């Protein structure tokens, strides 16, 4: 048995990645959405959701992750998240108060999902920013990992004939 095919032939790893990827995404978005009423917040939920990229790589290798995720778009969306944070913080200046003023503070009831005004909006923007930023960082590291001696010259992991989904042409 050749040593270089050990990673792609592991069906157990792929099935576990298939099972855990939706769970990781749902848990990450839950933590981001409930940042103002439960333990957690934007940073933590963003990192949780970005771990889906790593699961995608473990299951489907470099080629599968490359076809599923657009790297350039993630890098641009991170800047969009940062600008959204600055915009929600400058809502206070637009309303005539200082920077980071919570001008929507009494919208909604205490304990609801939409309850804390600009706190939850800034929480969502920071979660989006961390999700895209850490995902981009993981993709960068993965693309560096995928160019060792055990791989093809174009950076893909060698596959066998019965592979589906993300197999090299």
């Amino acid at each position: 048995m050749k040593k270089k095919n050990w990673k792609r032939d592991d069906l157990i790893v792929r099935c576990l990645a298939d099972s855990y990827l939706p769970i990781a995404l749902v848990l990450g978005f839950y933590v981001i959405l409930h940042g103002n009423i439960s333990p957690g917040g934007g940073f933590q939920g963003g990192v949780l959701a970005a771990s889906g990229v790593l699961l995608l790589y473990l299951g489907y290798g470099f080629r599968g992750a490359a076809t599923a995720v657009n790297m350039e778009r993630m890098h641009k969306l991170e800047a969009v998240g940062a600008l959204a944070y600055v915009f929600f913080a400058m809502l206070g200046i637009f309303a005539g108060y200082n920077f980071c003023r919570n001008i929507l503070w009494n919208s909604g009831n205490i304990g609801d999902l939409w309850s804390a005004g600009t706190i939850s909006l800034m929480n969502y923007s920071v979660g989006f920013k961390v999700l895209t930023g850490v995902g981009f960082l993981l993709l960068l590291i993965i693309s560096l990992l995928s160019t060792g001696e055990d791989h093809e010259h174009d950076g893909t992991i060698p596959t066998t004939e019965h592979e589906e989904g993300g197999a090299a042409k």
Partner: protein
Amino acid sequence: MKNLIAAISLILVLCLGVYAVVYMQQEIPITYDGRDTDVYALQQDPHDYDLSNPDGVADIIVKENLEKTQAVNNVTAIVFDFRGYDTLGESFVLLIAITGATVILRRARDRWEGGK
């Protein structure tokens, strides 16, 4: 010489331990307890919650925070409202770190586009 230094430092640590035990016997006011806080009543009606006999700083913090921001999670309210500038700088530090990693690993990025 080595044994002497070891003995002296051991005696010093012992003296510090005895001093700490004596110091802990004093009456030090409790600053953060919150054991007797009625969290449900505090969340239902933070304006009318009785703060005449607080058992620590916890229920004062929670009451003031609920009145001012209406966010149940205190840490999120502090991070995104009271310390908003801090979070802004933190997220831009992350942006700069990712930009630096992109510059250092730009060959890997070229490989990524080639593998597509």
